[in-house]
């Protein structure tokens, strides 16, 4: 594939996009595992939400 005389601009555009999308995916995944961990810690300490106490 020949990207011509402006290959640097094309490669830079794709590189920036890949970087930002990868950062978004990493943020969502890390945030999910962090929230799950904190919830698990709280439940281990016996903290429950009101809806869990009423059994619903």
């Amino acid at each position, binding site marked *: 594939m020949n990207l*011509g005389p402006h290959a640097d601009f*094309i490669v830079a*555009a794709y590189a920036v*996009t890949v970087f930002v*999308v990868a950062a978004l995916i990493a943020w969502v995944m890390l945030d999910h595992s962090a929230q799950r961990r904190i919830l698990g810690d*709280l439940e281990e300490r016996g903290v429950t*939400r009101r809806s869990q106490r009423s059994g619903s």
Partner: protein
Amino acid sequence: MAAIDLANPTRFLTLANRALPWLAAATVVVFAVGLYRAMGAPDDYQQGATVKIMFLHVPTAWLAMFGWGLMSVAALGTLVWRHPLADVAGKAAAPIGAAFTFICLITGSLWGRPTWGTYWVWDARLTSVLVLFLLYLGVLALYWTAEDPGRGSRAAAILTLVGAINLPVIKFSVDWWNTLHQPASILRMGGSAIDPSILTPLLIMAAAFTLLFVTLHLAAMRNEILRRRVRTMRLMQAQEIPA
């Protein structure tokens, strides 16, 4: 399952957990097809190979506006019906929309240098998209810095609705003003002006980016619901500690 059932956060979490693996797989497959077709697309007769930047720039531009539109609907849900999931949807969409707008601005700039001879010009289209990006940052600041989440959400919802005025300005800026940016060539009266050999991969890439947006949004909504549960449990824990 009735649509109203999805308004229950617990049911929404169940649905999101089921849908996310399928959405992620569909996103990967459509991106693979889209990138394969995009790399095999012919060069433009005027722009040469730089037309390949269009496969990133145009979908992210559409989704930058779609993201704000989604947040505007969510803002109505927050302000009018005070529905917690509407606020969750708005808050989860803001960083994703901001990231897509950022990609749109950077890829547009990198496309502009070889085709226009400049990275940036203060014309109506470019400036209104920059304003959209700044509005996204403003909404994020309101969500992330408010001490009272409820007040922060209402302020963000109001800013979102005010900012929605910018959407038609972005769309019609190339018609209302004399801009360096080209006029609409896909969504326009009389049909697309783009050859099918370039239009088809562009539409596949648009579908791939849309799937990516939806997947990330659903995952971010799931995280936000869990974050609110953590906050509620911490408040209850604090109330149970004897003074």
